């Protein structure tokens, strides 16, 4: 009887997962799975190529754009103070349209509504630069997204996507990043799949790239149908990823293989 109750409790725990499958004590940032050279590259602010985008983002931050003639800095006065910790809270539910948005979408929303400028294309140099600059202000701060109230539905959607099997390889995200992290996939060590380094400089890309691009690369790898980079499902998944990495420090701009 007691065992039955325990089993039920376990089952319930799985179905309505409120605690991440990887406990906080075992959380490991992706960088810890990389080589010593890769870790050195990320930790040295000059060797880290992502900082090229951060510096560019800083310039863009102060440059007025759009018909409103306003720069980001016109409203958000001191970036290092105003933006501190912001990236650690994203994705969030946007108050005006009740949709879940990531940092990139937030920046574009600001551009269209406040600066009266056209939205920047996904993965464009300028959007990556601004995102990297904003995320960089939260470096070292622990990820802490909210999944309560209006965010709950998006969180559930993201979790469902995470645990569902996709593509010709019939794999879920959890098959690699929860059940097999730390083991080898050919020459690579499988990471826990945390989003705390993004936007990150990936050596394979020879460029900075967003979390959406990284997830799409995973979908491509398991031969699944690709989600568009602005698909709400993708942002919901980003929310779930941020939640399961709760407490890991923001590393943006990170460096990955």
């Amino acid at each position, binding site marked *: 009887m007691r065992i039955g109750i325990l089993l039920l409790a376990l089952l319930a725990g799985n179905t309505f997962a409120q605690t991440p499958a990887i406990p906080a004590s075992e959380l490991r940032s992706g960088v810890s799975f990389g080589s010593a050279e890769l870790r050195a590259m990320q930790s040295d602010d*000059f060797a880290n*190529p992502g900082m*090229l985008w951060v*510096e*560019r983002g800083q310039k863009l931050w102060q440059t007025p754009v759009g018909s409103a003639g306003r720069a980001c800095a016109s409203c958000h006065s001191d970036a290092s103070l105003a933006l501190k910790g912001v990236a650690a809270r994203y994705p969030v539910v946007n108050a005006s349209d009740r949709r879940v948005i990531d940092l990139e979408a937030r920046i574009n929303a600001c551009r269209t509504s406040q600066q009266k400028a056209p939205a920047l294309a996904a993965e464009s*140099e300028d959007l990556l630069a601004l995102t990297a600059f904003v995320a960089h202000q939260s470096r070292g701060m622990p990820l802490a997204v909210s999944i309560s109230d209006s965010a709950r539905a998006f969180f559930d959607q993201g979790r469902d996507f995470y645990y569902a099997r996709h593509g010709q390889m019939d794999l879920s995200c959890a098959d690699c990043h929860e059940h097999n992290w730390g083991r080898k996939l050919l020459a690579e060590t499988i990471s826990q799949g945390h989003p705390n380094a993004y936007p990150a400089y990936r050596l394979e890309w*020879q*460029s900075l790239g967003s979390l959406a691009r990284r997830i799409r690369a995973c979908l491509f790898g398991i031969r699944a149908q690709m989600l568009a980079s602005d698909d709400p499902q993708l942002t919901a998944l980003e929310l779930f990823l941020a939640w399961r990495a709760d407490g890991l420090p923001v590393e943006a701009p990170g460096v990955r293989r």
Partner: protein
Amino acid sequence: MAAGSRVQVPTEVRRGEPFEVKISVRHPMETGFRVDDMGKPIARNTIHEFICRYNGTPVFAANLGSGIAANPYLRFFVTALDSGELKFEWVDDAGERGDAAATLRVTG
């Protein structure tokens, strides 16, 4: 392609003492061996010439090629006798030029 670079030199150096210069340049360093999504070859575009002058005198030069990764990062040592300006110049296969500069104060 968005241009940009980062330079790091000590603000103050001792006369005759070697110091380290670091520069990283935003550049795709396209090899010429890749094709785009439609199968069309992407033209080679690498920084093929890089030169650093100190008060007009060349102190470091490099010829880069398709074997160098994107966003090249160069480190080298220079010795200065007088205060002045380090100037970096480079040119890529598309003919686009870039430059950067840093000022140095020599003491002792």
